[in-house]
C-alpha cells in the first residue's frame, strides 16, 4: 500500500515534524516541559479512551490506577530498587490493580460501572492519604533523579521530552492498530450491541475485561512518566478531580477517535499551565470551554471539526458548481 498524499496525511506528517523538532523552535524549557506533559497526558487519555470511547464504559477511577503506578514507582525507588526494576514492578502492580478494578467494576455497566470505578478511585485516594508508611501521606514521595538509559541522562527537559515522545508514538501506533483490529471491532461491538455480540459467539465479559487491562496498561505507563516528570507524587494525583480531568480530555477531544484524546489532552494541559499564568480562574475557563464544546460539538472537537470542515467544503463545491453552471449557460 502506498501512502496517499491527501490532506489528512499531510497534516499528520506536519504534526509529526513539528513534534520532532519541537525543542528547537520552542523557546525555553518551560514550554518543552508543557509539551512533555501534553504527551504523557495524551497517553493517559488514549488509555481511558480504549474503555470510554471504544468500550462504552465510563470510568471515574482512572486517576486511581494512574496514581498506583506512580506511587509504586516512587515506593520501589525509595526502597532502593534500580530504575528499570522499579518501572517494571510499577507496571506489574498497576496492571494487577487494574485487573482487580475490572473484576469488581464489570459486575455492572452504565451508571453502575461509573459508580464502582468512582468508589474504587476514592479508596485509592483515601489510602494514599492514610497509609502513611507506604505513601508518605500528605508529604507524598519525592524521587531523586531520573533514569539514564544507555548513558543518556533524562534529567534535561528535551531528553525527557524525546523519551516521552517515543513512548507516545508507540502508544498512538498501538491504539491505531487496536482500533482497526478484530479485537477493536469486538470492543466496539460490545459497546453498541452486547446481546448480539453474545449471540454471535463473543465472550462479552472477557472482551470488556481485556479492554480494561489495555486501558490500564496505557494509564500506568502515563503514571510512571508523570512521576518521573514531577519527581514527586502526592495524594492529589489520585483524586477524583484528576479522574474527571482525563475524562474531560477524552470527551472534549472526541471519544472513540485516535486524535480526539490527544487534542483533548493538549487543550486541558495548555489551559491549566499556560493560561493559568494570565487568568486566575482557569478552572472556570476550562469549564466554559467544555460547555461550549458540548453545545457546539457534542461529538467532540476532532469529529466536530471534521464535520464542519466537510460541510464547508461541500458548500464551497456547491457554490462553485453553481457558478460554473451559470457561466456554462449560453448567453442569449
Amino acid at each position, binding site marked *: 500500500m502506498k501512502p496517499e498524499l491527501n490532506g489528512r496525511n499531510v497534516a499528520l506528517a506536519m504534526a509529526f515534524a513539528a513534534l520532532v523538532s519541537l525543542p528547537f523552535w520552542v523557546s525555553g524549557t518551560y514550554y518543552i516541559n508543557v509539551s512533555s506533559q501534553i504527551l504523557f497526558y495524551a497517553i493517559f487519555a488514549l488509555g481511558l479512551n480504549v474503555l470510554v470511547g471504544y468500550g462504552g464504559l465510563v470510568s471515574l477511577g482512572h486517576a486511581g490506577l494512574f496514581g498506583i503506578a506512580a506511587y509504586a514507582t516512587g515506593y520501589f525507588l525509595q526502597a532502593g530498587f534500580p530504575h528499570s526494576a522499579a518501572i517494571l514492578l510499577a507496571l506489574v502492580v498497576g496492571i494487577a490493580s487494574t485487573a482487580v478494578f475490572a473484576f469488581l467494576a464489570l459486575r455492572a455497566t452504565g451508571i453502575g460501572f461509573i459508580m464502582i470505578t468512582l468508589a474504587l478511585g476514592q479508596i485509592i485516594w483515601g489510602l494514599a492519604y492514610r497509609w502513611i508508611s507506604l505513601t508518605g501521606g500528605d508529604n507524598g514521595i519525592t524521587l531523586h533523579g531520573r533514569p539514564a538509559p544507555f548513558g543518556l541522562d533524562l534529567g534535561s527537559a528535551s531528553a525527557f521530552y524525546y523519551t516521552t515522545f517515543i513512548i507516545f508514538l508507540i502508544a498512538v501506533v498501538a491504539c491505531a*492498530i*487496536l482500533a*482497526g*483490529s*478484530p*479485537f*477493536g*471491532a*469486538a470492543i466496539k*461491538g460490545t459497546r*453498541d*450491541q452486547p*446481546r*448480539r*455480540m*453474545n*449471540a*454471535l*459467539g*463473543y*465472550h*462479552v465479559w*472477557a*472482551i470488556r475485561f*481485556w479492554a480494561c487491562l*489495555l486501558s490500564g496498561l496505557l494509564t500506568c505507563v502515563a503514571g510512571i512518566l508523570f512521576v518521573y516528570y514531577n519527581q514527586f507524587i502526592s495524594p492529589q494525583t489520585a483524586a477524583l478531580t484528576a479522574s474527571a480531568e482525563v475524562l474531560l480530555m477524552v470527551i472534549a477531544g472526541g471519544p472513540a477517535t485516535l486524535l480526539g484524546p490527544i487534542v483533548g489532552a493538549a487543550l486541558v494541559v495548555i489551559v491549566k499551565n499556560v493560561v493559568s499564568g494570565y487568568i486566575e480562574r482557569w478552572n472556570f475557563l476550562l469549564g466554559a470551554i467544555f460547555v461550549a464544546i458540548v453545545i457546539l460539538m457534542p461529538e467532540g472537537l476532532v469529529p466536530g471539526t471534521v464535520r464542519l470542515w466537510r460541510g464547508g467544503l461541500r458548500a464551497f463545491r456547491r457554490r462553485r458548481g453553481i457558478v460554473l453552471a451559470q457561466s456554462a449557460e449560453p448567453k442569449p
Partner: protein
Amino acid sequence: MATDATPNASSESALPALELKGLSKSFGGLHAVRGVTFKLMPGDRKAIIGPNGAGKTTLFNLITGIFPSSSGQVLLYGRDVTAWSSHRRTALGMARTFQVTHLFPKLTVLDNVLLAIKGLRPSKYVMWRFMSSYPDVYEKAHGLLERAQFMDRKDTEVRFLSHGEQRQLEIVLGLASDPKILLLDEPAAGLSSGESVEMSEFLQGLDPKLAILLIEHDMDVVFDVASNISVLHFGEMLESGPAEQIRQSAKVREIYLGTE
C-alpha cells in the same frame, strides 16, 4: 400426541440437533415456561406459535442460554449444554435472531457481517493485526451478501436500511457463523404484507440442511416455512403436530387462530 411427525427419512437415525427436556423458567412467581419437551432434528423446519406473553421469547432465551433455566435440560446434538454460557452454545452451531432488531446501526452492512463471521473464529480477539488483513473473512462476507442479495448495499450504514432490509440482515448475521440450527424470533414482525412474502421466500431459500425453529405471528409465513407447528400457551406446549393438523385443531383455533 405426535411431537415429532414427518421427519425426513435421512434424519430418522440421527441425533436431534436440539432437544428440550422438561424445560421450565419462572420469574419470581410467574411461570413463563413450564415443562417444555421438544425435539428439532437436523433440517427440520418447525414453528412455535402462541399469543403474546405465552413465553416464546423466554423459551428462546433459555435455549440460547441468556437466562439460566429453573429446571429441565437443553441438549445440542445429544450434549447437555444447560449449564453452558451463551457464546459457547453459539460455537456448537446455533444462531438466533431477535424479536427487536439487534444490529450495529452505525456500521456498514459489510462491517456487520464481518463482525458476525469473526464471532466463531479464534482470531476474533487478535489485536495486533488489521481486520482488513483477513481476506478469507471478506471473501466469505461477500459470498453471504451475494446470496442474500445485499451486495449493492454493502457499504450502506445499517441505520439507513428499511425495516424489512434490517430484518433480513438480522438473519444474514445469524447465518454468518454457518449455524446448523437457526432460531428466528418473529422475523416478519413489523413488515408490510409485501415484505413478509419476501421474507418467507428468503427463508424458504435457505440451505435445506439447516434446522429452523421459527416464532411467528404471521400465519402465512408460518405455513410457508414450517412443516410442523407447536402451540405455546401460558408457557405450556399445548399441542404439536404437522401444520395441517394444527390448522384444523379446534383447541388451537379457539385460543389463537380464532382471533384472526
